[in-house]
């Protein structure tokens, strides 16, 4: 059974249809890239998978291990292993990063029926991950994302992902706002998480992220539907020719 199976997904935002019968199957161990022009529905797809209020699925299913997660709260989806790395990570003044990470990890462990980590175990894990992502431990003493640069926020997303060990990682434009050095650190962090038990959906506008996170499958999203799928070479083709041809196809 596929880890993720999206069937005929229709999603509206404020009554306006954005996704129009999207189908996508992702198996364990695979990395899928979803590319598309602005307004094609990339972010809507990621928010719908994570369960953001307001993104109303009018038709279709999102099956995770065969179970439809569409009716679930965002925290229930997270506990089942869905993780969305946000395009614009939120700043939460007054909540220390460590408190946030610990609350999130313990909540997920609890919901999965596992024991919470002890403080030393937790700190050790966070420090190891932070080191691998070149995150200054002092930053984790500050409030979540407050005063962080765009690149630091993105690295912080990958840190959360590594700590929470999701089974399905959805990366929404993780490359946006990153310079080439930061991009490499983030991509290395993501690549370390690739495993036969885990799948990734990498949403991006540009091909450059895919030089670092090489996908198994590339899909082109246009007007709320996947209009073409191929291997990594498709991304290069898009880089050369642009999206115009697919917008015509969908029309």
């Amino acid at each position: 059974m596929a880890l993720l199976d999206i069937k005929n997904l229709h999603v509206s935002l404020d009554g306006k249809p954005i996704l129009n019968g999207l189908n996508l199957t992702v198996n364990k161990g695979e990395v899928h890239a979803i590319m598309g022009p602005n307004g094609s529905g990339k972010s809507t797809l990621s928010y719908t998978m994570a369960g953001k209020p307001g993104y109303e699925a009018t038709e279709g299913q999102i099956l995770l291990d065969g179970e439809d997660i569409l009716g679930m709260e965002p925290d229930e989806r997270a506990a089942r292993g869905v993780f969305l790395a946000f395009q614009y990570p939120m700043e939460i003044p007054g909540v220390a990063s460590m408190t946030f990470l610990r609350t999130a990890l313990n909540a997920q462990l609890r919901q999965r029926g596992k024991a919470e980590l002890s403080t030393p175990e937790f700190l050790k894990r966070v420090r190891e991950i932070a080191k691998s992502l070149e995150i200054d431990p002092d930053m984790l003493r500050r409030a979540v994302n407050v005063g962080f640069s765009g690149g630091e926020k993105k690295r912080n997303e990958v840190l959360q992902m590594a700590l929470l060990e999701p089974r399905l990682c959805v990366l929404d434009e993780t490359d946006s706002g990153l310079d080439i050095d930061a991009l490499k650190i983030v991509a290395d962090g993501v690549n370390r998480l690739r495993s036969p038990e885990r799948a990734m959906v990498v949403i991006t506008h540009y091909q450059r992220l895919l030089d670092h996170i090489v996908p198994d499958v590339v899909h082109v999203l246009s007007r709320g539907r996947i209009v073409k799928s191929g291997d990594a070479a498709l991304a290069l083709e898009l880089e050369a020719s642009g999206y115009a041809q697919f917008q015509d196809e969908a029309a």
Partner: protein
Amino acid sequence: MSLDVRPQKTAAEEALATMFAQARDGLPGNEALATARAAAFRRFESQGLPTWRREEWKYTDLRAAMPQAQPLALRAGRLPSGAPGSPILPVDFGARRLVFSNGIFVPELSDLAELEPGLTIRPMGQALREGDALVRAHLTTHSVSAVPSYDPMQSSDAVQSFVADPAVTLNAALMSDGIVIHVAAGKTVERPIHLLMLSGEEAVSVFSRSLLVAESGARVMVLESHEGGAGHQVNTAFEMVVGDEAHVDHVKLNGGVGLHVASLLATIGGRVRFNTFVFTACCALVRNQMFLRFDGKGTLANIGGSSLLDGRQHVDNTLIADHASPDCQSREVFKTVLDGESRGVFQGKVIVRQKAQKTDARMVTRALLLSDEAEADHKPELEIFADDVQCGHGATTGSLDEELKFYLMARGIPKAEAEALLVQSFVGEAIDGIEHAGLRDALMEAVADWLKTRGERVDASRN
């Protein structure tokens, strides 16, 4: 319209008049003080309990909220058995505890051992009876004889406003006990002083008055925690005289139930660090009024508060920050969380007098509404007579940020826990202004406790 024309006295006002007539001969103080008390009571009687007609009490109609007055507390009430504790502040961080019951000092429960050099502590009742020089010099009931008649159009002086306030006037007439703290010049009081204000079992009216005199260069932290009892009516006033280059931290915690009116007057010298914070998670009705006057150059003041309300609670934080000297900086940050049908009020007036050039004052008041029935009222005011100043204020009311909530939930944090984290972060921004780390943590614990009971109440209402 004449504001001096009073309608018929209410039952509570009648009871207060009887109370004063019966108690006046037994109240502590010499003849001069007795005269001052009588004058204060006459002033109170001419105005009565404050109503919405009085601008400073616009949102808190004490006359309507107080249909009856409880009998005057003349002695310490019986306390619940066991060691006296502070439910709102269960953490012991080495403070020197001074215990009061119904506003009356209880020496046998208080820690007066090994006072730091330069620290003097006396019960207010005794100081008034013995005509203590410090009290005669500084307590406004003695030192301010001319009280202006109430004029809502006139610009306010913090000291005059304090003395003319009806609650303070009533307190001046009936004050029975409290504490007098003196810190000598240049001395540092290492242990925080904790005034633990407990309520006896019988419902009473409490009129307590305290005085802190921190001489120049002195350093002290005073913590007040008020544990209100059912039916209790508390009127407490605290006067602080802060000398040049002193450093005073003041934190006031309101817990329990009942009606609570507190007035703080601080006259602050130059190059002082003055911090005051008021935390409220209690009571049917609370009015905290703060009157601060900056009388010297180069002082830094942090004035903050946070209130957590639910049910039909009403909490009013009212502040006058009177910049009477140049080069002072004041920061006012107030945060209110409102659930149920509660009502939160903030009135803040920053006055910058003509000579107070280079004043830097910033006032922020924010309310977070957790229910549709709660109400928040903000009244920020700036009265600026100097031309080279930086002053600003901001007032906002909103509900929990849904985007932030989604972010937290997307990380696996359940809804109730996500909301609790966001409320803590909202309040935490104000609590972060407290310098004492132990106290900061204790208050964040108190916020967490409040949020836990909130969850229980919501669950109960569903069943």
